């Protein structure tokens, strides 16, 4: 017996699946399952996070509902995955943030954006907030660069710290021996597997979302979102280097590296989340974890909001809308950062760690 109902169900399913194994060519979950004959909580959380929800094992399963064996691996592991985020959250006092995550994210985002608008309005007079500012340092007329850097660094570092603590707990739970380290080869393998979403592929046939036809495009939209996010992060990083190393202040001209990176990333962050949202809303209910709908959509919305406000800021930065848009954009980014450890963002972290573990297990197995 496990700690939760969903882990009991995941255990039951893995016992069924381990006596069948027809799906072992579809993804990493089933080969990892085959390395075990019994499943601890950590094992099940590992398998849950290894699952990319491609849906192929549901469509291919002769025992999926209405069969009496009632095998629904994607949905069960989706619920277990969502519950694992709360189980490994740091500090544990905030694990409740996952329960009504959509609401939490919305409130944090609204408060954050309101704080920036009110802050700008309180610290600057109306002519500054709604003024037209151009040329180097235009943004910092509204908020001094050092204040901006300090605030966002603090938020970012907190997120990194909280997620590091969570990953430690997860790794201890799924790893043997406890406290064992990941090797470089396994990490490199996991970077490749995550980077190409190797297991969001139905074993080569394609993924399933709305019906039993492998027509799913989530992989494409996820790539747009993920690489869009990375490009935006790169844009900010380059701009920070410009600021401190070269003494060049934002805003930069459209052809300059931070803006090019940010524009490309912004497009990804607008198109990708829309595609993912449409896919989510069409997803067959039997594959969907309805309880984490709020968390999923909340995260998609935050990414979309970040992308859209960033793109609008770029387009309208030489107009009177710049001040309010900057406040909205900073508010969105700030909310994204502070909610990172307590929302869907962590799926990428845990899945990556699970992929490292999987690569490591495969190496050990091949070597033995």
């Amino acid at each position, binding site marked *: 017996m496990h700690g939760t109902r969903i882990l009991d169900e995941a255990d039951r399913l893995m016992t069924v699946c381990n006596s069948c*194994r*027809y799906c072992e*060519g*579809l993804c990493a979950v089933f080969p990892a399952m085959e390395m075990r004959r019994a499943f601890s909580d950590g094992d099940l959380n590992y398998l849950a996070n290894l699952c990319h929800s491609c849906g192929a094992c549901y*469509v*291919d*399963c002769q025992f999926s509902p*209405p*069969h009496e064996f009632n095998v629904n691996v994607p949905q069960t592991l989706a619920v277990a995955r969502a519950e694992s985020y709360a189980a490994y959250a740091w500090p544990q006092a905030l694990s409740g943030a996952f329960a009504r995550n959509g609401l939490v994210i919305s409130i944090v985002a609204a408060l954050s954006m309101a704080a920036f608008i009110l802050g700008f309005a309180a610290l600057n007079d109306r002519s500054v907030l709604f003024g037209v500012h151009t040329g180097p340092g235009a943004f910092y007329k509204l908020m001094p660069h050092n204040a901006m850097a300090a605030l966002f660094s603090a938020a970012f570092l907190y997120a990194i710290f909280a997620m590091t603590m969570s990953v430690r707990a997860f790794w201890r739970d799924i790893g043997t021996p406890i406290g064992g380290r990941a090797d470089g080869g396994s990490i490199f393998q996991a970077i490749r597997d995550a980077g190409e979403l190797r297991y969001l592929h139905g074993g*080569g046939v394609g993924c399933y979302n709305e019906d039993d036809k492998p027509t799913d495009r989530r992989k494409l939209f996820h790539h747009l979102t993920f690489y869009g996010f990375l490009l935006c992060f790169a844009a900010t990083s380059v701009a920070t280097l410009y600021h401190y190393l070269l003494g060049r202040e934002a805003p930069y001209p459209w052809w300059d590296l931070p803006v090019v990176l940010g524009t490309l990333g912004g497009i990804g962050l607008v198109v990708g989340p829309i595609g993912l949202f449409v896919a989510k809303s069409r997803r067959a209910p039997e594959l969907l974890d309805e309880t984490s709908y709020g968390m999923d959509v909340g995260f998609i919305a935050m990414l979309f909001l970040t992308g859209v406000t960033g793109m609008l800021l770029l387009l309208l930065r030489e107009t009177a809308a710049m001040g309010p848009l900057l406040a909205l954009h900073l508010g969105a980014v700030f909310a994204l950062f502070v909610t990172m450890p307590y929302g869907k963002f962590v799926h990428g972290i845990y899945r990556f760690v699970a992929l490292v573990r999987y690569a490591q297990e495969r190496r050990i197995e091949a070597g033995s």
Partner: protein
Amino acid sequence: MGSKYDVLVIGGGNAALCAAIAARRGGASVLVLEGAPKFYRGGNTRHTRNMRCAHDAATEILTGPYIEEEFWEDLLRVTGGQTDEVLARHMIRESKDILNWIVEQGVRWQPSLGGTLSLGRTNSFFLGGGRAMLNALYLTAERLGVDVEYDAEVTDLVIEDGMFLAARLKRPIDGETEIRATSLVAAAGGFEANIEWLKQYWGEAADNFLIRGTPYNRGSILKMLLDKGVQEVGDPTQCHAVAIDARAPKFDGGIITRHDSVVFGIVVNKHSQRFYDEGEDIWPKRYAIWGRLVAAQPDQIAYIIFDSTVVTSFMPTLFPPIAGQTIAELAGKLTLDPVALEKTITEFNAAVRPGTFDHTILDDCVTEGITPPKTHWARKIETPPYLAYPVRPGITFTYLGTRVNKEARMLMADGKPSANMFAAGEIMAGNVLGKGYAAGMGMTIGSVFGRIAGREAAKHARN
């Protein structure tokens, strides 16, 4: 009056879909009538995982060549010669091309599954298993314009002088209708789920059989064809039957209820008596005889008994083993006579000779002085907890069928070929399989004869 098709395919599994696709590619209009609801479509195909095809060289997924002659020798051995050589050799030759043809229909292969290494050279596995294979065939058929109806119960066939005219169909909503077609492909499987029919040959024992596939494999089309003058082939008591867990559901437990532990222990009946050499040959060559062996025991029940030293030697099982710290405790849980079981195990242990255990070869661990002997892998059962799986006969499919020729054309009772009726899959498996089985052959029969039947049915319809 209903609509008219060039080719009517009755059935919805591998053979039926291969026939439908081949007929459609041959230019015919095709209707597939599947008696089961959509989820349960495909009969036993949904539980399969591989196909045995001849090939002259290793492929991406097959570890070495498996030439026609070797396939033929394997077939000859498992059937004890009870096969139609012309038909069987034709099937084996055609199977070589099926390896590629089936991929062109959207099916994907993968290397043999974990725990099935002994099949890695001879058998090609479906990526995602049999239901994935079926899904691919249905998608292809629908894309090509094949019409498919589910829950389509055929109530009668109109046949005159060996010529198919129409099928009567009971639809769940519209009621009775008649469908005419120029050719018929019957690919509706055996009668394994029809307990009443099984009882005609097995008596009350059939009540204790478990059926590994869906409850829809009732053999109604087979019965209609035999009643209307199609020549019968095969022994009605012959079937593919394995020993499966007695706790499995009556129908559709599929592959996961099987047990691979026989060679690691002993098997006793309800009187705690052993009844067959558990170590006769390596398991992949013997698993398919244990269904019949258990069927011949009183109450059609047996118990695989082993000890804690071998639990990780075979695939994990769906149902956990029943455990006891002593033989007597185990016997109590199995409702066996403790004295009798202890006696059987004590005698067995005393008969075990020293040897070097290796389950991958025919090793030298044997018994001496007991009947039946255990001729390989005999080791003492002496380390508690003592463990057991109760098993019953699990019927996969029956071999009684319609006789066909190389064109998959049905032969009538007088020996004349039918003008327009073809058969493929389990409904005619008895032409090739008089008895016995080798893994993956059912799918070979289905794909090869399905494709031939579809091709010939389309040819007839176009002429």
